[in-house]
């Protein structure tokens, strides 16, 4: 196999700020908290960092989804980047990581900090006017024009279409879907940074209110304030740092379908995610069965099923039965899943919580939620744009 860029880069540090619903700290403070802690975790100093990247950058949109630019973060961290990137294209949350890998492989940067900050909880205390739910009569355009006039005012309405189609095609049921929320919450109980840690039973799940059938309140992730930062380093520079380097065994990405062009498939899968999954396995000799744990995107619970199938962790239509009862996806199961609580219980970091949790597991920092001898982890990210990564520790 030719030398792929990801084989030249490693994850060397990772950290999360406090996570609040809401937090009293500003998005920039939270960003600095996470970045400084991740840099220190790697055994580096801020002046060692020569690249910085984020998803999606900063926008004037007031909802707290894009509160900090990489330039602002660089300024507050006192670093002088030679390489900088904000990538919002295609809702591909993992793109800054892939681009950082490429920058490192090309020699543009040696140590890059990638962060994702959100301030959606504090923004909602002030106003909802920046969201589609403001009650404003301003007309909608772009992709919103196709759904919002039908009062599909939340992404849950769109992903509920997938859940319903999946249920009918494969004979899945709500107790099987509830296994995701219950599993995630059980893991979150051992994650001090998770926002929801109170144990949850399947009965609790089934008693929670239906928002958009078949999806319930407990199928949804939650707005938070917080920041996650990941330090990536060239493998030659990673050897002597504080943590054992986490190799980026492979990466895969794709956009298409939902929101990016037009809908594909029969609403039981995300075809572009399947393409990301194919790319992922083409770039490694590892096989799905060799994954010690999986951090699978759960903006809504149904994403987990579709991603598990897109990644080939289970055959199409089998995710519902694989997760049923929760035994096989528990910490001591055959494929421990969303070991930090996922977004359903730990909050909406747009997949960066999943990446952070992979580092927790591979560095043995999981305490009560630690998967024994975890050496490999597959991570997936995104509901509209798709990224996946395999991390491996020697």
């Amino acid at each position: 196999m030719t030398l792929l860029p990801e084989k030249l880069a490693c994850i060397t540090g990772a950290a999360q700020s406090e996570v609040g619903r809401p937090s009293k700290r500003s998005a920039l403070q939270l960003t600095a908290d996470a970045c400084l802690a991740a840099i220190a975790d790697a055994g580096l100093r801020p002046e060692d960092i020569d690249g910085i990247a984020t998803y999606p950058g900063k926008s004037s949109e007031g909802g707290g989804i894009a509160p900090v630019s990489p330039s602002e973060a660089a300024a507050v961290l006192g670093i002088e980047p030679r390489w900088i990137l904000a990538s919002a294209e295609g809702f591909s949350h993992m793109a800054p990581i892939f681009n950082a890998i490429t920058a490192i492989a090309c020699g543009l940067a040696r140590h890059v900090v990638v962060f994702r900050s959100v301030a959606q909880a504090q923004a909602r205390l002030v106003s909802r006017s920046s969201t589609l739910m403001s009650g404003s009569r301003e007309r909608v355009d772009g992709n919103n024009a196709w759904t919002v006039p039908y009062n599909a005012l939340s992404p849950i309405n769109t992903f509920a279409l997938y859940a319903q189609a999946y249920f009918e095609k494969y004979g899945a049921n709500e107790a099987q879907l509830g296994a995701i929320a219950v599993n995630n919450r059980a893991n979150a109980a051992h994650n001090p940074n998770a926002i929801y840690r109170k144990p949850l039973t399947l009965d609790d799940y089934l008693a929670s209110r239906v928002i958009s059938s078949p999806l319930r309140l407990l199928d949804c992730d939650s707005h938070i304030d917080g920041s996650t930062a990941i330090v990536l380093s060239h493998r030659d520079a990673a050897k002597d740092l504080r943590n054992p380097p986490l190799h980026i065994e492979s990466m895969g990405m794709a956009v298409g379908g939902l929101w990016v062009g037009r809908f594909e498939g029969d609403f039981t899968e995300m075809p572009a995610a399947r393409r990301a999954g194919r790319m992922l396995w083409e770039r490694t000799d590892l096989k799905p069965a060799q994954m010690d744990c999986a951090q699978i995107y759960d903006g809504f619970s149904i994403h987990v099923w579709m991603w598990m199938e897109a990644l080939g962790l289970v055959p199409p239509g089998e995710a519902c039965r694989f997760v049923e009862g929760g035994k096989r996806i528990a910490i001591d199961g055959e494929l421990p899943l969303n070991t930090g609580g996922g977004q359903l219980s730990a909050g909406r970091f747009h997949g960066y919580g999943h990446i952070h949790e992979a580092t927790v597991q591979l560095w043995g920092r999981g305490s009560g939620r630690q998967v024994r001898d975890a050496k490999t982890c597959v991570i997936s990210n995104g509901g509209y744009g798709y990224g996946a990564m395999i991390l491996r520790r020697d």
Partner: protein
Amino acid sequence: MSEAPVRKLPKLEPETAFFWTAGADGALRIQRCTDCGTYQHPPFPLCAKCHSEAVAPEAVSGKGRLASYTINHEPWVPGLPVPFVFGVVELAEQAQLYVFTNVLAEIDAVRVGMPLTAEFERHDDVWLPMFREDAAHG
């Protein structure tokens, strides 16, 4: 007196206005490539299949099947009447040619695969395509 909530309407943009005003004469219209015959929705300035720029709105049958649906129970804005059915219709003209809609049906009667036919709900200069069960196929 509180005003009844109204739908947030689509902007009539150069490439999409034909879709939202097609109901004025009662015919659903979808963009079609006059070179290769492929329908595409949402519209693009060229055919995504053959790259011809000879794309134009064409009246379609308004028939289709319900590819999937959800019953929305959440009143996202005050006064939003719930529950309602949000669905995606696969139009009869072409596989995976989808439009979103509200299905005008009793909640308990909605099912994946149900045959549907289009009608229009007018708001100002917008004719929203809506779908209900196609009795001809009932």
